[in-house]
């Protein structure tokens, strides 16, 4: 059967995926802009992680990362290269979460306090937070990124796949429950 009628559950699922895409994009635009507007503050926070040895690398991370997050967020909101952008975000969130976790562990050990009582500005864009909440938030963002990278949230996209967009429309991940109003 060609173009079967989507079920109600299918429509809700598709709509949820699109909302997730917009939310994820919006979160990264906001967090990226907060850091991009105060690059010196972000530079100081990145330095605290002691990740790189040379000033040029440290400066490059602090200078480019916030704008890169804004870029990926915009792509997700607009629906351009959605899977590639989501994969990039997942690739950034994973190491960020690891280094935040490691630093929180070190702080908890140094101050002899429970892990979930550790609170600091991790440089994530939302100021000083309880690290347990931050890790939960990052986990949720990673799940959303993985979901989008797996091929969901396709509807209402300007150019869902940057490379070979026509193949995507007929491939196994083609839309099953389009939200767009069909004009033809």
């Amino acid at each position: 059967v060609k173009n079967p009628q989507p079920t109600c559950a299918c429509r809700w699922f598709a709509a949820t995926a699109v909302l997730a895409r917009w939310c994820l994009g919006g979160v990264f635009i906001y967090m990226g802009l907060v850091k991009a507007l105060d690059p010196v503050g972000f530079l100081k926070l990145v330095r605290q992680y002691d990740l790189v040895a040379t000033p040029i690398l440290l400066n490059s991370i602090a200078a480019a990362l916030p704008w890169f997050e804004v870029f990926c967020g915009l792509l997700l909101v607009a629906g351009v290269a959605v899977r590639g952008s989501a994969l990039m975000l997942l690739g950034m969130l994973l190491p960020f979460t690891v280094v935040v976790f490691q630093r929180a562990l070190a702080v908890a050990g140094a101050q002899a306090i429970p892990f979930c009582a550790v609170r600091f500005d991790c440089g994530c864009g939302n100021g000083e937070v309880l690290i347990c909440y931050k890790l939960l938030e990052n986990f949720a963002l990673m799940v959303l990124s993985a979901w989008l990278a797996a091929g969901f949230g396709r509807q209402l996209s300007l150019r869902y796949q940057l490379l070979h967009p026509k193949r995507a429309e007929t491939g196994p991940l083609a839309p099953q429950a389009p939200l767009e109003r069909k004009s033809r």
Partner: protein
Amino acid sequence: VKQLFWEAVLVAGVGAALAFAANAISPRGLRLARDYFPAPPSRTNSPSVNSNLVTGSLGATNTQSALVKLTSRIRERGLEPIDINRARQLFNDPGYAQQLILFVDARDDDHYRQGHIPNAYQLDHYRPERHLSEILPACLVAQQIVVYCNGGDCEDSEFAALFLRDSASVPKEKLLVYVGGFTEWATNGLPVEIGERGSGQAPQNPR
């Protein structure tokens, strides 16, 4: 999967190029080749030391030990730390009015405008070019220069002092770092000026 990989690589490449371009044209952008931190990260930079020392919410013993650490860190960096009593003494010295003693605020514009030690010069060492023409002649004349930032674990006063010493050839004997910083100064009810340097305006609700 291969297509997804190449799409991610393309996003990474274009995104990185645009990100560096945005940094380059942003008026707040960073200079990639500059060493903004002329000293390694401090091991005392634990978040609790930073915030609690300023707010005074640590126990007296912890505060004292944090102060000792900060003082020794400043000394390790070849600078001379001073406490609030010495800072107050220098502020009340007749030499301050004659510009033989200078106070230098190493914080950013927002913090400086919200309140600074009266007649203190501003030197945001992350963007020093904006202040050097005003501050350098004054530093050459001055006999003692007190540099401060927010206090607590804030390192900007040290970096500004190191900048003056290493890049502006100010003799290190002149340079003093006020460890308690502006927060300690203001919470002790000492004079504060808001807005521009020399505005003479006091804050509406002094702390």
